[in-house]
């Protein structure tokens, strides 16, 4: 995977994970163009499109678009599963996740993503293990006051 973007239906970026080195300007340009392209797609169209020399796999969950750019030899269908797995992880962690959770706890969304994917590839295929690792890491955070993630442990 080269990058993953999460954005709302109004085109606001909620998360961006880049696995290739690009300048800020390039990232902004790509984001802008891709968001425009994906938002222009009609609901009945398929989840894959060719864009520049990449394959884009996207899926909408409620008000959020999850969009991944994969390379030619990557499997589009399994990428859909990866996106789904990430959503499931977020859901388990936040308890029925919604867009607001990701807006207000974006750093946690990143932490979860980084426990699931590394360098663009899945590092752990067991949902349980990913969640366990996050839980343990959360415990390590100083000023830890309670178990629930919603209480913004060691609030930055």
């Amino acid at each position: 995977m080269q990058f993953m973007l999460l954005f709302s239906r109004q085109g606001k970026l909620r998360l961006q994970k880049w696995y290739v080195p690009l300048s800020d300007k390039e990232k902004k340009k790509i984001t802008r163009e891709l968001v425009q392209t994906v938002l222009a797609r009609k609901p009945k169209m398929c989840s894959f499109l060719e864009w520049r020399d990449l394959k884009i796999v996207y899926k909408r969950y409620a008000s959020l678009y999850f969009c991944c750019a994969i390379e030619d030899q990557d499997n589009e269908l399994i990428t859909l599963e990866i996106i789904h797995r990430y959503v499931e992880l977020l859901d388990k962690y936040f308890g029925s996740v919604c867009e607001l959770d990701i807006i207000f706890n974006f750093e946690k969304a990143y932490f979860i993503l980084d426990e699931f994917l590394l360098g663009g590839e899945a590092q752990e295929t067991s949902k349980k293990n990913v969640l366990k690792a996050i839980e343990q890491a959360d415990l390590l955070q100083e000023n830890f006051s309670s178990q629930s993630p919603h209480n913004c442990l060691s609030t930055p």
Partner: protein
Amino acid sequence: MPAPIRLRELIRTIRTARTQAEEREMIQKECAAIRSSFREEDNTYRCRNVAKLLYMHMLGYPAHFGQLECLKLIASQKFTDKRIGYLGAMLLLDERQDVHLLMTNCIKNDLNHSTQYVQGLALCTLGCMGSSEMCRDLAGEVEKLLKTSNSYLRKKAALCAVHVIRKVPELMEMFLPATKNLLSEKNHGVLHTSVVLLTEMCERSPDMLSHFRKNEKLVPQLVRILKNLIMSGYSPEHDVSGISDPFLQVRILRLLRILGKGDDDSSEAMNDILAQVATNTETSKNVGNAILYETVLTIMDIKSESGLRVLAINILGRFLLNNDKNIRYVALTSLLKTVQTDHNAVQRHRSTIVDCLKDLDVSIKRRAMELSFALVNGNNIRGMMKELLYFLDSCDPDFKADCASGIFLAAEKYAPSKRWHIDTIMRVLTTAGSYVRDDSVPNLIQLITNSVEMHAYTVQRLYKALLDDISQQPLVQVASWCIGEYGDLLVSGQCEEEEPIQVSEDEVLDVLEGLLVSNLSTPVTRGYSLTAIMKLSTRFSSLNRIKKVVSIYGSSIDVELQQRAVEYNALFKKYDHMRPALLERMPIMEKTATNGPSETVQTNGETDSTILDTKHLPSISQPASQANDLLDLLGGNDVVPIIQTTVPTKPASAGGELLDLLGDLSLTGGPTPTPASSVPMSQPPFLLDGLTSQPLFNDIAAVIPPMTAYNKNGLIIEFTFERSNPNPNIAVITIHATNSTEADMTEFVFQAAVPKTFQLQLLSPSSNVVPAFNQGSVTQVIRVLNPQKQQLRMRIKLTYTHKGSPVQDLAEVNNFPPQSWQ
């Protein structure tokens, strides 16, 4: 100074902003506060401030002043700090930043930290955005962690190693020992990442690939793991909709593909498991189909037995019928890849593919279109063309150009009859006329010229089309050219194929003049129609009207049109005796290569082949020439062939002068073609003979003279040239090797090498025996890509056996005609 506000507080506040300006103001205020807080070197709130900065960065605001702060956070002992610090590093510090390298030491320390979660943070950061220098410095640490027994760290180290290898391929060797027992792990995370690592290594290095195939016996191990996954019962931890760890299955299948490609033994070893996966995988959900998809890709790439391949294509066929768009899309993509190798099997699914042309999704339609073109053959051409023309009518504009080109190509290859061919072209021109590619116009004109018996029918149909609609330029251009050529057939109502229409000369001229004045016509189209009107002066009787039109345009603002008009005027006034000859019917054009003289005449002394490159055959456009210079007029493409047909019939008057003019031309001719052209150029009669015996009018592709590349010991190698139509940078050279000695030359091998700026492709030779006494020749095709248009040079090596003894020779070929590489 009060404590900086919390992250969530900031987010809440910013979200209340109602306008962009309001938001910007809030952000600027907060940034200022953060900046002063950074200046105070406050450790307590640094984490909070950087987190806020990251949020603002995501909104699109600059955050570079936080870069160093991220480094300080990473260096801190607090886990919270490190977590945010590393996140900040991944978001703000890519390898282009100068401060990037400062992280290296921190990461190194953290890789050896006592807490695995800190080590994990370091591995993650390094694996996501480590630069080559960092990777070089820290590869040793990663390698160490790859051998640890802690599976949490091991899996991360494996993916980190993948990144290191991508950045610094030379370091690949160093990870080899650590991979030894990676696959004997039970932990799926480690297994998955190990397979990814092995895949990366095998893809990058053929040595590694053969090492893993032979020495490590990777294939049986992978087969075993895959088998366990499929056969083992329900495992809640890794289950996805009833399938056990599909992610791992897919990665294993992909690695098997790489291992099996081109290798019989490996392919055989995996046949069974592939068949098993292909038949046993549940297809009701996307997961199952993802695995089947990967399986199909693997089967098609390795040396699988035919039964397996048919199974794979059938799976794709089933995919095509699936309700899920994504599955259909994926099926079409895969079929496109396999249509060349397994053509017949894919043909069986043709009707389903053609149905996909009607799909609503753009990507599916495009794939279906490409696949349909790949499946067209002599048997199904009529049916397929019907579907494709229907598609052309209704598809999006983005498709029309490609579809039109595809239809032309298919029609050219498989047209069952000339009439059908012309009808098809007409249909394309009338429905998608404005999207047709520019080079189709000359190709179509050539096609029409060559279908002699269809001239009347064609011109009639084109005329009728013009009456309907003059907005589609390619259609208009072809139509006006045809009317110019065959106008006489049009007014005489000679059409056999369909009901002849009654049309008068004036009506025809009305239409052509209409094109000249219409706003819809491009300058090129106007040029065509003016020339057409001019040509009709020898076919129609209404000379005065034509003369009037031509003289009016002598003062046209459009330089091109003006030049033409003035020249035609001159034709009426000063050279009227030549007019009939010049405007005679075009001969049949062939796409074959010709020899020297004809070409010299055409080049008219110009050194580059730009004249030849004017693809508008009827146009006499030569920007550099002067308006009244008749020599230039004669140098134009469409005039020369006419001279050819005229000379035998009018030898005395017109012919004689023409001869002289041509004689002049040939003497002023520029670079003479290479030694191969045997015809001397100073003998006009001989020149003309050359013209009459060979169709002069050639497709641009053909006008490069052949040459002798090698002539020694009875072996002569001649090169003939063609320019590849779709790509003008590719020259297609055919070598002809002949043997004038009394013994055959056997085991003949021709090899060629070109300078670095070129690329060479040598196709297979017709045979490797060059028969004696010039009884036959060996031909071989070379394709040379010359993007920089540099002078072509080639070194050739010949090896053959002659009279029992082996002969080897090297030669340089430097006498390529300029047209072959310009």
